[in-house]
């Protein structure tokens, strides 16, 4: 049986900030439809790694493929490529001068050249999907953090990405708002979306992740299914990380 085609593939990926080796020989892949949770202590390179996929961070060595596309191919139209990669930031980064609907419609109208009406219908559909249908005309400043992050997810989904990347999507949220965002992410996972999530939400990982990558000092030091990773971590580093995480 041939393995399922990979959606994201890192081959020998290396990145340095000056002398600091931020990503050290990353070799890994995420299959179509797979949900991978990346965790690790701060400074371990997990955010850097996820940001290399749509080239918000450049790498110095190695190759990255997204949906079969070499991310660093000279012929790549970077803007067009990025529009296919759904990306959700820790700090939401909604555009505060645009309404919720306009936030979602911006890229579809500018990049995909959708008509205003088409983009608006699509925005309404996506807002309903993240449970915010009545907020189309609100401004981001009027929303709670959890609502803003759900709008940010809808904004990324509006480009119909084959995969979604989440960079600590719940880390900037008050605890009572984490659940509503995770709920949306879980429903995406259930719908078969390929997802790469940098997060420390163990409950989320246990429930929907197919695999967990544990990173430390720029390397993926341990991978496994969430159940065995969380209950029986193999490396000392992962054991210490998990016990630190639980003591909070």
């Amino acid at each position, binding site marked *: 049986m041939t393995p399922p085609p990979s959606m994201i593939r890192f081959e020998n990926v290396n990145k340095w900030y000056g002398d600091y080796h931020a990503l050290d020989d990353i070799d890994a892949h995420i299959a179509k439809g797979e949900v991978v949770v990346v965790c690790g202590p701060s400074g371990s390179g997990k955010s850097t790694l996820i940001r290399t996929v749509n080239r*918000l961070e450049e790498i110095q060595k190695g190759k990255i493929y997204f949906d079969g596309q070499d991310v660093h191919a000279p012929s790549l139209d970077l803007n067009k490529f*990025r529009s296919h990669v759904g990306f959700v930031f820790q700090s939401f*980064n*909604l555009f*505060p*001068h645009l309404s919720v609907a306009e936030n979602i419609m*911006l890229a579809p109208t500018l990049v995909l050249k959708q008509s205003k009406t088409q983009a608006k219908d699509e925005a309404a559909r996506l807002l309903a999907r993240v449970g915010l249908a009545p907020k189309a005309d609100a401004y981001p*400043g009027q929303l709670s953090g959890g609502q803003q992050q759900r709008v*940010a997810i809808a904004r990324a989904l509006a480009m119909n990405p084959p995969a979604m990347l989440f960079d600590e999507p719940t880390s900037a949220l008050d605890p009572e708002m984490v659940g509503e965002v995770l709920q949306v992410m879980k429903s995406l996972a259930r719908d078969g979306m390929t997802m790469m999530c940098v997060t420390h939400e163990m409950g989320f990982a246990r429930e929907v992740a197919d695999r967990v990558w544990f990173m430390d000092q720029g390397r993926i030091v341990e991978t496994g299914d969430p159940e065995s990773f969380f209950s029986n971590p193999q490396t000392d580093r992962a054991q210490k990380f998990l016990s630190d995480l639980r003591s909070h």
Partner: protein
Amino acid sequence: MGDIIAILREHGPLLLVGQYPNGPLGGLAITFVLSVLGVALALPLGIALALARISPFRWAYWPATAVVYLMRGVPLIMLIFWVYFFLPALLGRPVSGFSTMLVTLVIYQAAYLAEIVRAGIESLPKGQTEAARAVGLSYMQTMRKVVLPQALYNMVPSMLSQFVSTIKETSLGYVISVHELTFAANQINSTLLTKPFEVFAILAGIYFVLCFSLTQLARHLERRVSRRRAGQTVGVTPQALATPIPATAE
């Protein structure tokens, strides 16, 4: 005080509109036209300079930086003389005092506005650009649709202050005989000969009222902008929105 009122009654129109409608427009009207046109034309140039100043391309960065530093490092009056003597030589025909002054103000103000716009762009969170690029917007689309609308809105108070400076700077047009407000006051002074204190008190009064009210307007706008910004901070809860923002937060 009686003298001042008498002067205003007699020469008020000269101060306000110059010899218009029997002669060219002048006085406060020209001061105002020069300032408005000066800033309006300087703004697009200033935005272009600002974009060049933050651009990663050396061929854009260096010339723009040189222009900005040069203009900010010389007195305006010297620039007026340069334009006054060089522009006619360059064009091969005489240039009116008004046009000379306008060109000077546009160049000079563009350099200052460029720094205001640059600061406005750089004060936006980096995440704004990243989010725009991440959904596939090009650099120019990001600037036009995401960065500049926010930066310019935030910069309205600073730009209004710059407008106030420009109003005061138009008085230097006097040295190349632009018929603006100061020129008109001086004309009146030359006619009356014995009332310099009253005439220049009127002049000071007009400038002050105009600039002071615009400065107040700028302050008012500044408060509005910071209130709006406060409402847009990350993670605002509905409760925080319902409570009025204390004055110290402004």
